[in-house]
Structures are given as C-alpha cells and as structure tokens.
C-alpha cells in the first residue's frame, strides 16, 4: 500500500471507530488462521463482561421489538384516556401516562420496533453498498477506483444528519417509491445513502492489501478466476472489520433516526417512535419530566447495547490487543 | 546447588580477568491469563572483561529473556524474576533501586537489538537518539551531544556522519541502522555489551562487517560481550565461550572450540549435525526431530528427552538417571566443560567418572 492509502485507512478506522489493527490488513489469511482468529475471538469475548452486558441488552430489545405485548404489561399503547394525561409513574403504570393519557410504558416499548427495523435495514443497505462498491473499487483499481473513491469523498463531506435531513424533507414530494413514504423505509434508506462510505473504504482497503499479497498471487498462479479470488480469498478477510463496524453502526443509526424524527423529518404521527415521544415531551419537561426521561433512557440503552457489542468484538478480533 | 563453583572452570579458561558479571541461578516467569510460562529456569554464567560469551539457542530457549532480565527491561507484568541474582561488579542488580539500575544501563551494561528499524524511534533523528545517551547520563547540552553523536557515528564507520546525523532511521540501510544502534550502545563506553541477534536481520556480507566492527570495538575498549544468537557460524567466528540454552536452561557450556568440535550434550550434538559442513560435503544433514518445547508445559525430567536419540527410559535407565523423571543437573563432565545430561560421557566418548 502507498502512504496515502495507509493514511486513508487510518482515517477510516478513526471514522469507523475501529482503531488499531483491525483494518490493518491481516494478509496472512489462510483458512486455519481465519478459523483461529474467530475461535480466539470467541474465547476473548466470553471473558468480557461488557460484551455480555451488551448482548443481554441487545437480546432484550430485539425481543421487545418482536413481541412488545409481553413487555407492555398488558397495556395497549393506543388505548388512551385523557383523564390520565401526564400522570406520573405509579406501581400500576411504571412509566406513567403521556399527554393523551396513553400508558407510557406501552408506548415506549412499542417504539423499539421502528428503531430496530430502521437500524438493521439501514445497516444491511450500507453493507450491501459498501461491500459491492468497495470490492469493485479495490479489485479493479484504476479509473473505476478513482471515480468510486471520489464519489465516496463527496458523500463523506456531507454530515450524515444533514444529508438525511435534506433528503427526508424533500422525499414526500418526489415520486421515488419508499423515499416518499415518510415511513421507516424512507428513514433507513436516507441514512444508508449518506452512511455507506466507511464500509466501502474498509472493504476497499482490505481488498487492495490482500490482492497484492503472495497468497493471492499463488491462488492466481494456480488458475483461480478473478471472481473466485475475490469471493473466496479476499472478502473473508474484510469480514472482521466490517462486522465490528456494522454492529456499532446499528447503534449509531438508531440514534440518528431518533434525532431526525425529533427534528420533524423522520417518522410521523401516528407512528410510535422514541424521537416523537422526546419531541412531544420536551414541552412539558418541567411538569412531567418522565415523558422525556423514559424514551431517552431506553433509546440510550439500545444504542449502548450495540456499541458495547461492537467494542467488545473489536477488542476480541484485534490481535494487537492481546498480550 | 553449586552453580558458582561449577562456573569457575569456564571463567578460568579465559585468562582475561575477573568476572564483570555473575548471573546466578536466574529464574524468570511470564504470568499470563492462559498460564505461567517458565522462560528462564536457573541460568548461571559469568563474564569477564574482554571476554565474548555466546549464548546459543533456538527462539524460545530463554536466551533473550535472560539478557533482558540482566538489563532490567523486562516488561513486568507479565514477566517476573522469581529467583537468583545478577551481580554486576559485585553488586546485585536485582536488589538495587530502580534508579541505581537505570544508571548502570548505558555506562555499565548496554544492549543492541535484532531489528534496528523497529528498535529505533522513527520520529527522532539518529543523531538525537545517540546524543540522548550523553544528555541523560552526563547532562550534556543538546549541541555538544550532537557533536559527540557525529563522533560516535564516525567511530562505527558510518560514511558522511556529519551529513547524516540529522537523518531519520528509515533513511538508512539495514546495516547502517545496526551501526547506529551500536553507536548508541557504546556511546558511554559500557563495561558490557549485550548483542541480541545483532546480525540476524542483515545480509550475509553486511553481517560480517557488523561482527567485525563489534570485535574491533571490543578489542579497543576491553568490554565484555554477550552475544545472543542462533547462528553457529557467528559463534564460531567471534566467541570465546559458549553457553547452549534449551527450554530456559543452560544445557552445555565450555570454550567454543571444545563445544563445537566435541559436544557433550545430545542437543548440542544435534545442532552441530544439522548444519552443513564444507568438509562433509555430500553427507546428509541430520535435523533434530520434534518441536522446541512449549515453555508453559516443559517436559518432566530432562526437558530435551522427548527429542533425544540417546534417552533411556524406564528399566533401561540406571537408577537416578531416568531421562523422563530425573532432572540432569549442569555438571562438570571433563575439565572446562559442563553439560546437563545424564549420559554426557557417552556423547563425548569418554569413560564415566
């Protein structure tokens, strides 16, 4: 790799939150080494309490998204009685009531589904874009790489929230399906569209590094086709950094969704979303602070679950961290 | 144990002078999460002024670790010196304060490392890094230190020293970088220089130049030289005495001429047979079978017994000399020669005492 590529890589690591080692190409990736990387990583993960906290929280919120009824203590988020408006938490209603007199626990619990759907969908789209574009740019190099890298630079230069904000504001008046829907799909696509570049660059760097390794030269000498080399030899090498990045990014996207929704361009009523709850609760923050507190708390814990898992995964997969 | 007594014949073999350094029954462990690694298990040797002692062994034999223990630069944790003594000019370094130890590093004992590229700080010029020795130990000014650095670079025969003093390590060739390391290490005329695989990373021709330089510097200054290596050729050329290490222990010790011509330990014997000899052209090389031991699980008895062709197990063995249960002590086999094997006399071809 050239110095400039090395530098870009370093910056991508910083951007991706995967500093040290991970993105530095582990060129000697025989199958055995990969296997031992993963089994060593699992051994390391198992001993990391932060991983377990993250994993338990993660499973908890995924279940909450799948079967919210179980967590809502029998309350229906849309069965409201104005008589209860803004009632404080009680033994019967742990999170109290919102402005409309709806059970707040049920509302906060039902908010998990949209957050997770958007987080996971956006990251899947990011991975798809990142792997495909990154692999093409890294493997073919030359003009293709030059153009794709410049396009990534263009998107890089726009802050994630800002880009998504503009697109979502414009979205409903365009004829583009999904984007004009004001639904979770629109939010996920908007965030993915302005967030795919780091994944692309991680994959690209790995591909460039591994492509020039002796080990790929050997595979090529034995007559393996370009596509086979890419799929069987090069891409598996990029899995570790991309996986770490993806895990953390789910958390980042969930936070971004809440922010966009809070700013009024994300999900719209009557959708149930933490961002909407925080925005609505803001007005009565002095009289009924629980309306901001509970969605904020649950939102933070959800983000934390993914950040912690990603962190632990990075530490486990980074051989340089080990003694 | 009587290590000190046993070491005397070796020291006497070189009439160069009194011991500068006495290492006595040194033990070093690495305590990691996955278990304790016994890296050095009771190593003793001494070094006199002007003497060159080679410590020969495979990677993982504990040769570098023992040297770093002498320097007091082992990373702790995980490394722990669990026993023994390191006497430098009659003072036990293990019982000194950290500050006293530090003051010995540089003017007393100095060390050069295998990979000069990674061992030199990439962000400082070589002149700065050599000059640091004078600044840290003699309180010299930055300007004077730079001047002395140029002198040192001249002394290790770096061409155009005055012009290159402000260059960075990556701008030098491998051989020149190693010279920079040497210039730094001998800057304060140390009594002892420890060279840890100083030529392993270099081309053969450059290797010879660096070794010649070290020998010349030694004869100028009379410093003791501990040469850590796995290269039998280098040992043969420059060392007076040799200590062969295996699994964290010294298994054989004597003068280079003696040990190389007539090994008395099966491991040394195996090493000698595994190198090509000009005079034995056409013959087959005999590699030592098996793998070096895992220092977390050193074999019982003689650590070499699983790979040894002369081992005697069970009923074959005379009492007290069963290779898998009885640990062979390092003992005098013939005058001037020690080995840690129950059957050294057999290897050597002399009658048992």
């Amino acid at each position: 790799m050239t110095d400039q590529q090395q530098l870009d890589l370093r910056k991508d690591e910083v951007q991706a939150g995967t500093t040290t080692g991970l993105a530095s190409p582990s060129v000697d990736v025989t199958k055995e080494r990969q296997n031992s990387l993963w089994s060593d990583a699992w051994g390391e993960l198992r001993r990391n309490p932060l991983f377990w906290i993250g994993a338990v929280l993660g499973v908890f919120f995924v279940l909450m998204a799948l079967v919210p009824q179980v967590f809502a203590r029998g309350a229906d988020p849309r069965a409201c009685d104005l008589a209860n408006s803004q009632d404080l938490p009680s033994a019967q209603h742990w999170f109290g009531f919102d402005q409309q007199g709806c059970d707040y626990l049920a509302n906060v619990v039902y908010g998990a589904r949209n957050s997770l759907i958007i987080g996971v969908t956006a990251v899947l789209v990011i991975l798809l874009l990142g792997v495909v574009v990154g692999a093409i740019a890294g493997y073919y190099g030359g003009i293709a790489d030059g153009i794709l890298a410049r396009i990534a630079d263009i998107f890089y230069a726009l802050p994630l929230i800002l880009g998504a904000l503009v697109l979502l504001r414009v979205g409903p008046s365009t004829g583009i399906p999904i984007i004009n829907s004001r639904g979770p799909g629109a939010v996920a696509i908007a965030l993915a569209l302005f967030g795919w570049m780091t994944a692309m660059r991680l994959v690209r760097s790995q591909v460039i590094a591994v492509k020039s390794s002796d080990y790929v030269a050997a595979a090529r000498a034995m007559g393996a086709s370009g596509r086979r080399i890419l799929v069987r030899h090069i891409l598996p090498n990029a899995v570790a950094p991309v996986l770490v990045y993806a895990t953390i990014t789910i958390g980042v996207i969930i936070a971004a969704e809440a922010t966009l929704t809070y700013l009024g361009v994300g999900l719209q009523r009557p959708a149930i979303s933490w961002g909407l709850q925080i925005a609505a609760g803001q007005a009565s923050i002095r009289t009924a602070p629980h309306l901001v507190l509970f969605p904020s708390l649950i939102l933070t814990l959800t983000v934390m679950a993914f950040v912690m898992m990603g962190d632990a995964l990075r530490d486990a997969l980074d051989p340089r961290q080990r003694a | 144990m009587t290590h000190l007594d046993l070491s005397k014949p070796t020291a006497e073999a070189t009439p160069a002078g009194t011991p500068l350094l006495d290492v006595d029954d040194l033990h070093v462990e690495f305590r990691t999460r996955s278990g304790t690694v016994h890296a050095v298990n009771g190593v003793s040797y001494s070094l006199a002024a002007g003497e060159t002692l080679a410590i020969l062994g495979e990677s993982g034999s504990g040769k570098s670790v023992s040297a770093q223990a002498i320097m007091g630069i082992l990373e702790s944790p995980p490394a722990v010196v669990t026993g023994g003594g390191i006497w430098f000019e009659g003072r036990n370094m293990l019982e000194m304060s950290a500050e006293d130890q530090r003051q010995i590093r540089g003017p007393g004992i100095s060390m050069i490392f295998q990979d000069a590229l990674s061992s030199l700080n990439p962000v400082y010029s070589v002149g700065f890094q050599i000059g640091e020795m004078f600044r840290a130990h003699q309180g010299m000014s930055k300007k004077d230190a730079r001047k002395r650095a140029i002198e040192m670079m001249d002394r290790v025969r770096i061409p155009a020293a005055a012009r290159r003093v402000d260059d960075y390590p990556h701008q030098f060739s491998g051989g020149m970088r190693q010279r920079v390391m040497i210039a730094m290490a001998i800057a304060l005329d140390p009594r002892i220089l420890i060279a840890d695989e100083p030529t392993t990373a270099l081309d053969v021709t450059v290797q010879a130049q660096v070794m010649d330089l070290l020998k010349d510097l030694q004869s100028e200054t009379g410093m003791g030289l501990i040469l850590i290596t796995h290269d039998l050729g280098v040992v043969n050329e420059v060392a007076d005495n040799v200590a062969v290490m295996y699994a964290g222990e010294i298994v054989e010790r004597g003068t280079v001429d003696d040990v190389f011509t007539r090994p008395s330990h099966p491991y040394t014997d195996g090493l000698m047979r595994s190198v090509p000899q000009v005079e034995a052209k056409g013959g087959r090389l005999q590699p030592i079978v098996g793998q070096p031991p895992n220092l977390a699980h050193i074999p019982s008895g003689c650590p070499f017994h699983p790979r040894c062709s002369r081992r005697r197990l069970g009923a074959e063995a005379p009492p007290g000399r069963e290779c898998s249960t009885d640990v062979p002590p390092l003992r005098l086999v013939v005058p001037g020669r020690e080995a840690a094997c129950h059957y050294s006399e057999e290897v050597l071809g002399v009658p048992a005492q």
Partner: protein
Amino acid sequence: MGRYVARRLLLTIPVLLGASFLIFSMVYALPGDPIRALGGDRPLSPAVIAELRDRFHLNDPLYVQYWEYLKGLFQGDLGTDFRGRPVLDTIERTLPVTVQLALVAILFEAVIGLVAGVLAGIRRNSYFDNLVLVSTTLIVSIPILVLAFFAQLLFGLRLGWFPIAGTNDGLYSFVLPGLVLASGSLAYVARLTRTSLAENLRADYVRTARAKGLPNRTVIVRHTLRNSLIPVVTFIGADIGTLLGGAIVTETVFNLPGIGREVFNSIRSQEGAVVVGIVTLMVFFFIFFNLVVDVLYAVLDPRIRYD
C-alpha cells in the same frame, strides 16, 4: 510537499462541486412553491410571480440553475434568499457563533480527552483505566439529543450553573453546548490516546529507550507520548472540520444562532439558496481541515513523505 498540496487542492475541486451539486439537486426538488408562499395571505399578481420565478431561474432545468449558481459563487455571490437578503450576510451573521462553539468544543475534546486517555493508557487495567473505558462507552452511546436535554435539565435548570439557551452570556454561554457537542469526540480522543499509548508502550523503541538508561519520564514523554499522539492530534485536527458542520442538533436545542441552526431552519422553510450556501461552506471546512491534517501528518511523522 508543495506539489502534493497542490495536487490535493486540485482533487478537492470535484469533491466540493459534487457535494454542492448533490445538495443543490436535492434542495431544488423541494416541495411547494416558495414564491407563492412568500405572498402569505395576499396573493401576488401573476406578473410578479413570473418575474420572481425568472429572477431565481426557477423555470430553467436543474443544470442551468446550478450553472447560474456556480457563476455567482465564483464572483463571491452566494445568491439571496426569497426575501432578498444575501446569503453571504446570513453566513456572516451566523458563522461566528458556530466558530466559537466549535472552538470551545475542541478545547474540551483535546484537554479532557487527552488527559483521560494518557492516564488510562499509562496505567492500563487500573481502576482509572476501567473508569475511562466504561464512561467513554456510556458517553458514546448517549445520543447527542438526549445528552443535550439532560445537560440543560441538570446543569441549567436544577443546578443553575450554566445558561441553557442563547448567547447572552458571551463565551460562557458556549460551555454547556460545547461540552455536549464535544462529548462523542472527547470519548473517542480518550480511547484513541489510550490504545495508541498502550500500543506504543510495547514498541521495540521504547524497550531501547529503557535499555539506554533514560529516566522513566523521558521514556514515557519523549519516546511514547510523542509517537502516540500523532493519530490523536490528526484526529482532533480533522474533527474541527466535522464540528463546524455537525452542530445542527446542539445549536437547535441550545438555541444558538449558528450556521447549524440556520441550515436546519432553512431546510424547513425551503430556503434553497441558504441551504446550498451553508452546506457548501461546511463541505469546504471539512475538506480543508482534512487537507491540513494530511500535511500535519507529514510534519509529525518523518516517515510520511508526499512526493
């Protein structure tokens, strides 16, 4: 070096143009008719509407509009909003607020992040190190939105230490929002410093420094910190560019009239010229500070040479 900078500057042109065109094309697809909205209750006459549409090139195809915009840009004219105020004036009015906020944030980020990271890195696995690890995980996980509310609630309303909105208290008004804005980067700087330091402490040249008999302080400061701070300093440098463009939420919640809040309000009120102008500026900052950082890299690390 000079040639490298020149080449990098050239390369930034397509990025700058691409990013501004991207925003431009999105913004000009904004819904509704801003001219009609301008009239409010009293409908404008069709003639006036036609004249205004013509003046703002609203009837031309997108690329013509963009070309007109670029022509203006190169003459230092960022256009006017629909009320006729020059966008440049808006930027001049709002940018100083954002710059102050970013400076305060960078200060927090550098000082707190570095100190925490260094202490944690030197004493790895100590109590303090674990505290840094856990608290940075927490901070990174709290969305800036949530953090802003709770900072307002706790330090502003409950404790009354800081003003919670506006810029009436001079630089002091920026302390709380600056801390909130810096939080993520601060945690990241602490982590980066810690990892970098711990990694360098194991480096061969640090072993050499010890073998040279250098005092412990010299070993740590000169031979470990100096090397470890290279990625940290460059991260902080690049982050200036990010912070100058990333303060939408903080400025909105704390009601600071900077470019972040301005661009958000303009997106809502469909002030296309303002949005494009400010975003182009943000992109410029981002690219500029990244270039600065690349040059800085070569200054800090003699191994990197751009020839």
